[in-house]
């Protein structure tokens, strides 16, 4: 190997090593804070699904302490197994992703459960869309929904996280006449296809048919999973 080549390789290796050590150190140093932010974001979105106002009058997000306080005083988290029976298992992110564990959030006031919320996620067009869905006490009516992570096209499918889209779900039903119903996201608008309105459908997003179909499918499917547990409550 010639002198110049040796210098070149040494320089390249030094740069690589320096950069990687630096990046590892920074990533490791910031990990705790980042995880705390992700956790806070999860809690924040549960609150949004429950319909809690998470913005102050200036439109800023409320602080982490406030979120923790609301969470501690109103929300109880329980874990169901895949058959909808309550278990004492510790929540495990992998099991939750594979739907072997189903986390359910209970909004309690004066010891009484007022609302229920669960995570829901599924395929849109380009990406997995993640959200939370809250139900009223009747275990049929949607109290609120939020989509907080997705990789859909900005301006088209990316509109799923906008208020105009998610607000429509409030008051719609996932359960009617004693059984779960297939929810619909209607292209061209609900009123054009169902002139008398439809309690199981919302307006779609122009140019985002596949995203809408995906959302309708995965919230219906996730509801069915939780419905096994809801049947126990209804029966009781």
């Amino acid at each position, binding site marked *: 190997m010639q002198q*110049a080549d040796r210098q070149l390789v040494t*320089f390249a290796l030094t740069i690589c090593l320096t950069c990687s050590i630096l990046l590892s150190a*920074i990533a490791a140093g*910031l990990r705790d804070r*980042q995880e705390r*932010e992700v956790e806070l974001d999860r809690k924040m979105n549960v609150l949004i699904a429950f319909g809690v106002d998470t913005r102050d009058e*200036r*439109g800023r997000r409320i602080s982490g302490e406030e979120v923790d306080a609301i969470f501690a005083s109103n929300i109880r988290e329980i874990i169901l197994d895949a058959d909808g029976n309550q278990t004492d298992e510790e929540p495990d992110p992998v099991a939750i992703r594979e739907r072997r564990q189903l986390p359910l959030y209970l909004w309690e006031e004066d010891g009484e459960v007022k609302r229920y919320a669960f995570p829901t996620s599924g395929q849109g067009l380009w990406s997995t869309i993640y959200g939370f869905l809250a139900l009223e006490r009747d275990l049929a009516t949607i109290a609120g929904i939020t989509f907080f*992570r997705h990789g859909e096209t900005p*301006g088209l499918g990316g509109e799923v996280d906008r208020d105009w889209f998610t607000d429509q779900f409030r008051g719609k039903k996932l359960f009617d006449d004693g059984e779960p119903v297939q929810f619909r996201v209607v292209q061209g608008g609900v009123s054009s296809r169902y002139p008398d309105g439809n309690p199981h459908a919302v307006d779609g997003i122009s140019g985002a048919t596949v995203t809408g179909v995906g959302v309708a499918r995965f919230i219906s499917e996730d509801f069915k999973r939780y419905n096994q547990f809801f049947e126990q409550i209804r029966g009781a």
Partner: protein
Amino acid sequence: MAATKKIITDPLSDNNPITIQVLGICSALAVTVQMETAFVMACALTAVLTSSNLIISLLRNYIPSRIRMIVEVSVIASLVVIVDQVLRAFLFELSRQLSIFVGLIITNCIVMGRAEAFAIQNPPGKSLLDGLGNSLGYSVILLLVASGREILGAGTWYGMRVLPEAYMGNGLAVLAPGAFLILGIIIWVQRTVTNNFKDD
């Protein structure tokens, strides 16, 4: 002294990276719907560009010319990852809105362009100023475009309401074509005022 001053002021107007060289407009179009995202993006680019110019200038006499560009990209990429990690830890919501655009600073032509055109052949002090000047030139345009888009699109500026509540908001300004239009108008006005570009 005059030459040093020119390093800073040139990129602000006469040699602006966005309006004259038309570099880095991908992010200029993408993150300018609101002032807040544009401001954070401008800060992120400033941090990356000034430090990459400084580091590359310090290394300039040691970098073997055959792997020059690879080394530059490694330095820039590392800096961008650092900025991205810091944003995720301290400005989580904004980092989500900026999404891939912080990561795309790596491919922002301004950063690579200044490393190649300036930092690789100039001393650290000047390179730092050059980085700062170009970042400011980029930031000024980004904030101008964002001001126009947020005011026209939502009737607010930096989240504060400036137009009456009754203003419905202009959908065009929020979408990418609005950014093209506003950027085009800025370029037009600047070139008319400075009179630097004349057709033969």
